[in-house]
């Protein structure tokens, strides 16, 4: 059975989602428990892959529908003909992030979302969103990647517009869907250009056959720009605050992970599909690294600059999400640039790899602390009935737990020790300084601005006199919400205290999955 694990991780939640309406007929509690069991099962299956994939630096293949799941090519052929799932370190790393955040978001929304007829649909969409993320992280087939991208973006769009009676959410959902439809259309065009030349959709096969013709470069542009757009990198970031701020809080926490799934696409394509580590690394590949670096620095700076002037707590956090995406792009971009610069041995080993470790590690850290912050923002917004920071005061008297969680998240995002943001940001500063001191200084400066803006939020929302007349909603925080936030707090602190464990167990295999592709 263990050889079927890759497909089971995708199909079990799918089957649960299809059975959900019937389960809701049986009983609300039954439905919730079924959902919890499905998400737990995914997480357990993902964890059970760690020994083989992460500790042994292995790669698991699964050929869907073939006589033998482990055989990639049919007998006597040099190319695959079926859809192949491939789990390497990076896929597993991203899958674990998605699974954990989905678990937390589900626990949080157990009581947070009001129990009306829509809630069953909400859970179905949440499960399918998880399927979409894990599917696109596990697949090794370009068209399958596109299909899972569609699943992901449609479920995200519908969840963004969950509160349909409100004024803005449907338009936010429309915007997200528009961005996704444009992105997936051009992604498909790029896939078509690759298919026209190589007659296949398998990433490994195309990567080995790639001759870097003009059409390949066109395909690269048609595929990378939409994915960067969906990840929320700079010139195309305007949808991020609009959609993040309208979605319910647990959905926003998952939307961060969904954007990172697109970021996964960017990295996967630029390394595993278009990267050519074998011989003559062309100048273009180096410039790809620089493009990613510039995108990253711009995202960092513009995101934080826009965040400083916000008065809407969720928009502020959304702009910080753009800004933090910049760190990941910067780290990995420096990695690519160093890797492509020629002497892979010394320079890459000394700081290029460290930059990549920082960038990749930051993905996980960001998913956790930004998820935590968005979850606390859910409590704050529900308490005051508004998102406007100027109308909030003194929540720390009432919700001490939320206040502590917010402090942990805010310190982590600003890169203060001993939280996890510090661990990855330190790696990025150190290694980028060796590459180009200016970039590193910009990164540190952005961190300071981030801290400033979160101090502002903490000051307005939590400090000050107790004002019960401003409190809109007094119902206590449910156990599920506390458990959800508690899990993330513990993870943020633990990963800050023992970063080297996470790096050894998860991040190093992820780098190995990206860089050493034959």
């Amino acid at each position: 059975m263990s050889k079927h694990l890759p497909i089971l991780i995708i199909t079990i939640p799918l089957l649960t989602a299809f059975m959900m309406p019937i389960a809701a007929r049986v009983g609300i509690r039954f439905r919730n428990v079924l959902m919890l069991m499905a998400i737990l099962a995914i997480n357990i299956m993902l964890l059970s892959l760690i020994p083989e994939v992460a500790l042994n630096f292995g790669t698991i293949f699964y050929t869907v529908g073939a006589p033998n799941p482990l055989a990639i090519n049919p007998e006597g052929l040099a190319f695959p003909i079926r859809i192949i799932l491939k789990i390497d370190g990076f896929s597993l790393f991203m899958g674990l992030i998605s699974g954990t955040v989905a678990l937390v978001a589900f626990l949080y929304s157990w009581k947070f979302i009001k129990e009306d007829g829509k809630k069953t649909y909400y859970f179905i969409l949440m499960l399918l969103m998880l399927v979409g993320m894990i599917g696109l992280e596990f697949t090794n087939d370009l068209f399958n990647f596109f299909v899972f991208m569609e699943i992901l973006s449609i479920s995200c769009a519908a969840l963004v517009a969950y509160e349909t009676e409100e004024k803005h959410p449907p338009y936010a959902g429309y915007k997200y869907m528009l961005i996704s439809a444009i992105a997936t259309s051009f992604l498909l065009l790029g896939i078509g250009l690759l298919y026209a030349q190589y007659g296949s959709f398998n990433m490994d096969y195309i990567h080995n056959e790639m001759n870097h013709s003009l059409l390949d470069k066109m395909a690269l542009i048609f595929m990378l720009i939409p994915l960067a757009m969906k990840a929320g990198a700079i010139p195309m970031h305007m949808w991020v605050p609009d959609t993040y701020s309208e979605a319910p809080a647990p959905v926003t926490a998952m939307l961060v992970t969904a954007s990172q799934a697109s970021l996964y696409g960017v990295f996967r394509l630029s390394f595993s599909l278009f990267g050519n580590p074998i011989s003559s690394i062309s100048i273009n590949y180096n410039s790809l690294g620089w493009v990613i670096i510039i995108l990253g620095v711009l995202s960092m700076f513009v995101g934080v600059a826009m965040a400083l002037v916000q008065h809407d707590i969720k928009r502020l956090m959304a702009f910080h999400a753009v800004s933090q995406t910049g760190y990941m792009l910067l780290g990995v971009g420096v990695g690519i640039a160093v890797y492509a610069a020629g002497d892979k041995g010394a320079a890459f080993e000394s700081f290029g790899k460290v930059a990549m470790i920082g960038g990749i590690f930051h993905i996980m850290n960001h998913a956790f602390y930004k998820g935590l912050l968005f979850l606390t923002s859910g409590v704050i917004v529900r308490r005051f009935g508004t998102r406007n920071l100027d109308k909030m005061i003194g929540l720390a008297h009432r919700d001490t737990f939320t206040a502590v969680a917010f402090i942990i998240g805010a310190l982590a995002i600003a890169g203060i020790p001993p939280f996890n943001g510090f661990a990855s940001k330190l790696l990025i500063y150190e290694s980028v300084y060796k590459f180009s001191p200016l970039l590193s200084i910009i990164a540190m400066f952005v961190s300071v601005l981030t801290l400033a803006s979160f101090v502002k939020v903490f000051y307005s929302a939590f400090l000050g006199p107790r004002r019960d007349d401003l409190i809109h909603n007094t119902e206590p925080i449910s156990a599920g919400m506390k458990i959800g936030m508690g899990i993330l707090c513990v993870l943020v602190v633990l990963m800050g205290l023992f970063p080297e464990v996470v790096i050894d167990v998860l991040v190093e295999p992820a780098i190995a999955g990206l860089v050493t592709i034959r």
Partner: protein
Amino acid sequence: MKIASFLSLFLIAGFLFVGINRLHPVGQPLGNQNVFIDRTGELTDITYVDTMDDYYLRNGQRETGSNNIVASVVFDYRGFDTMGEASVLFLVVTSISMLLYPSIRLKRDTVDLRDPRTGFPMDMTRIVSNGTYLMFPLILAFGAYLVIHGHLSPGGGFQGGAVMASGTALLIISSYITSHLHRTYNIFSFFESLGLTIFIGLGFAGIGVTFLSNFLANTSPAFFGRVIDLGPNSGYLNSAGLLPFLSLAIGMEVFFGLSIILVSMFHLARKEKDEKGMIK
């Protein structure tokens, strides 16, 4: 902003036009796509096969037993994509149900517009309603034919389901489905879930080998596993193993899914009309 959009436009246009100059003329590369097949059923030298499509054209019939190679690609070689695509449809149906949930739930059901004596809709002329009465069974039968014969002739789950759903659209337009929309909706949604569950169940049935493997092909004629003559033939319904079943499941899912989308959007329109007092 204007400048940026102009720039991106020129970029895209330039790229596309450069692209078509670099693309091969239609029909040049991607293998030699000749279908050489011995009458004995053995494939000619496998080394001739140099692309994925060549492999499908030459071995598809032998491996899956399906005459329609497109169907064998859709349901066998790339069946996982089809599963994802079916879940996209399920997803959209769920999303639309969720989004329109407050609007669709009515205090009272919409008015039954049918004449109590004849059973025909009242706000349409007799030509439309009689025409629908005649056309709908034919459309349904044609759709069902497409679904069932998906592995022999053009057609399959998607196409048949879409054709049948256009029958639903006809029913809606000529006001046959006006009353008991909730019941219609619930029934449709049940069958939609059922279709998908059957699809995944059939996928799991093959997990002794792999998920979605065509374990019935070329086994025995009783289980749709008839071994067919390779090359052009006249087609046998009981061939292709799992394909007809998968096609049936997808056809069910697509028909009911598309119908739900139509019914709920139409329901919204009808309710708006009702609120404005346009229905007596």
